[in-house]
């Protein structure tokens, strides 16, 4: 019973508080205020709570209320069932993927020891690991995340097809083609990292990234697989269908792509799903390549650098401090990557459909295969 309750609490905290709350509002706010700064504008400041514009936050609420109150329109001749279910098919996968993202290492009921001689592995002495900081502890977490991310293509394709509009159809086709193409490059660029980590368990992968090269350089994914990091980030950007890869909804060409015939909350769900996908890709990149919850030189039993070891505030207290620091670290990494995506979004123009395909199949795919091959050779030699 307690297990179920803990899981429920975790789901609520991670999905509703973190993803929809912190990340959602940060991205929406950041998106608006940041784009305003980039573009020499003031940004939202007219809606106010008691005379305070609060960085445009009331606009965000007003938008939500407006979208809820809008009329829900299903176009004539559209397939009503599919048209209605498509937003859910986009939105739900964007949230399910979070179940395997660890926000912190498992909680140790005993004391944690870090073993520098064994690649800075942390072991739990006199106790056991309790999974309190990720919804689900899954052996094949990466595969699961990928499978779920891939499912959202159905939503877009179905939305495009069921709307009975040619613009929607084009948008749906573009989005399926794009997502499938980039799925391949994305998976292959990750394969190199998987070869090195030797596990599909995301938390294990993050733990391994706690290793320090020469006792000072954190062995994050970006250090051991630099090319794969960029390939993965690029393919991930394309997966989220945001600029410069926003051709499924390229508003000047095909009106709004598969979103054309959506109004009200259905439209909002699609949009929110996109934001959630942006944050999810950021989280995936963070855990696989940027050390996840690892903070450089901060370990559960103290700070370690160049073979030195301090434990400020005593072991007991430090453990809790390290938990907070590590959750802060992954949150910061995710928000940084989201910020990076928005910077690109507001700077770059949109690709053309065939150029995206060329980039995916002719550039990213061969590069990721080469990366995988080279990694495999090196791993074999070293092993």
């Amino acid at each position, binding site marked *: 019973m307690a297990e179920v309750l803990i899981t429920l609490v975790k789901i609520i905290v991670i999905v509703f508080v973190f993803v929809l709350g912190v990340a959602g509002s940060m991205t929406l706010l950041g998106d608006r205020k940041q*784009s305003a700064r*980039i*573009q*020499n*504008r003031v940004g939202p400041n007219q809606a106010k709570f008691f005379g305070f514009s609060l960085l445009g936050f009331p606009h965000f609420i007003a938008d939500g209320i407006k979208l809820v109150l809008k009329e829900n329109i299903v176009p004539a001749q559209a397939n009503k069932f599919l048209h209605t279910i498509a937003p859910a098919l986009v939105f739900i996968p964007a949230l399910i993927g979070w179940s395997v993202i660890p926000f912190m290492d498992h909680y140790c009921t005993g004391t944690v020891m870090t073993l520098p001689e064994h690649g800075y592995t942390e072991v739990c002495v006199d106790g056991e690991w309790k999974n309190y900081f990720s919804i689900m502890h899954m052996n094949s977490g990466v595969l699961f995340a990928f499978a779920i991310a891939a499912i959202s293509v159905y939503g877009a394709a179905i939305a495009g097809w069921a709307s009975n509009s*040619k*613009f929607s159809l*084009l948008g749906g086709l573009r989005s399926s083609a794009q997502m499938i193409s980039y799925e391949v490059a994305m998976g292959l660029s990750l394969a190199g990292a998987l070869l090195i980590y030797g596990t599909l368990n995301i938390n294990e992968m993050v733990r391994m990234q706690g290793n320090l090269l020469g006792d000072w350089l954190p062995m994050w994914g970006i250090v051991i697989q630099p090319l794969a990091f960029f390939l993965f980030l690029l393919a991930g950007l394309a997966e989220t269908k945001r*600029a*410069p890869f*926003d*051709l499924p909804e*390229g*508003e*000047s*060409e*095909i*009106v709004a792509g598969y979103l054309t015939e959506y109004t009200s909350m259905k439209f909002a769900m699609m949009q929110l799903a996109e934001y959630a996908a942006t944050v999810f890709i950021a989280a995936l990149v963070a855990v696989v390549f940027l050390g996840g919850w690892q903070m450089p030189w901060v370990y559960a039993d103290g700070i370690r650098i160049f073979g030195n070891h301090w434990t400020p505030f005593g072991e007991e207290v430090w453990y809790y401090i390290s938990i907070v620091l590590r959750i802060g670290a992954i949150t910061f990494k995710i928000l940084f990557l989201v910020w990076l995506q928005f910077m690109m979004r*507001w*700077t*770059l*123009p*949109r*690709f*053309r*459909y*065939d*150029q995206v395909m060329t980039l995916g199949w002719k550039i990213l795919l061969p590069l990721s295969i080469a990366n995988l091959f080279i990694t495999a050779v090196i791993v074999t030699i070293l092993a």
Partner: protein
Amino acid sequence: MAENIYDPIDQDVHSEPMMLQMGPSHPATHGTVRFTLTLEGEKVIKCETEVGYLHRGFEKESENSTWTQVFPYTDRLNYVSPLLNNFGYALAVERLLEIEVPERCDWIRTLMGELSRLSDHLTCTGAAALELGAMSAFLYAIEGRELVWDLIEEVTGARLTVSYGRIGGLKDDLTEGFEERWKYAKRRLIEIRAEVDKLLTRNRIFLDRFEGTGVLTPEMGISYGYTGPVLRSTGVDYDVRKDHPYFMYGEVDFDVPVGHRGDNFDRYLIRMEEIVQSIRIIDQCLEKMEPGPINSDDPRVVLPEKEKVYNTIEGMINHFKIIFEGIQVPPGEVYSYTEAGNGELGFYIVSNGTGKPWKIHVRSPSLIMMGGIHKLIEGGLLADIIPTFDTINMIGGECDK
């Protein structure tokens, strides 16, 4: 011989081209044009253009107004650079009247016309970026246009519908301190142009979208009657300002940028370069301009001073006649052409000797360019329509008249 195993499969797959109505209510065609596209996948195999959604009957309206009352209508032709239309029309009527305007008037017309051209090119370049999704570059360019419009507002009293030209002169002289304000605007404009240049000109995505799309050959450009930056992008060096100088264009030093590929990218580069040239021309105008009258002294054409209108009977009658009967233009016809933002803006005017034009025909560059746009679009991808349509810079008001 092995049997081709794909044959039966190919037969099973039934496919046909898709018809797509792009516009008039479409984000890229903004209510002014409709493309009926035949698509094969995303490739455009046929494009039928339909214009006229913004038709207001400019030519017919003009026949029912006095010569002076036509000015507000010309504002609404190319509404991004209304001053150029004002002056183009004024020049046409002056040629019919065979009157000369004072030198200062010509200088101001040159200067204000170039300001308008700046606004036109900045809008076009910015919008090109906007429609490709690069919103930031658009807003930078629009800041430049705002600066230009502030100057125009200061001189003419309006930002968009300026009605600043008059037959035989201008509404007003330049304001005091115009030169200082221009200096500020100029500094900012150069910065903005550099910023946009940095964001777009060497941007890989932008290059991919613009280079080699919407290609126009010089032969085709000439045979369809293309003019302006679009024709110059193909390598045809034709600029009315250089080849048939009017106003003070003969007196100032400026270059006419010419491309060689005729694609969207060349058109973009030409507009970016013309921004620089326009700034040069304005600087020279301000330098060479001498104080003096801005209106012709011909009493048939120019309204008398208010002093005379209120105090003398001749002035009163003169004022009354010009306002109510209009300027009496001698019978005859004229075709006068100037270089507007998009190309050669021609006015063909027939007068029957009364105070109202008998016939005004506008050779609007946009309409003529829309006549051949299908050639630029066909064979490309659906997404290529956007940059092509943008660098053609079709302005609904001018095209549909």
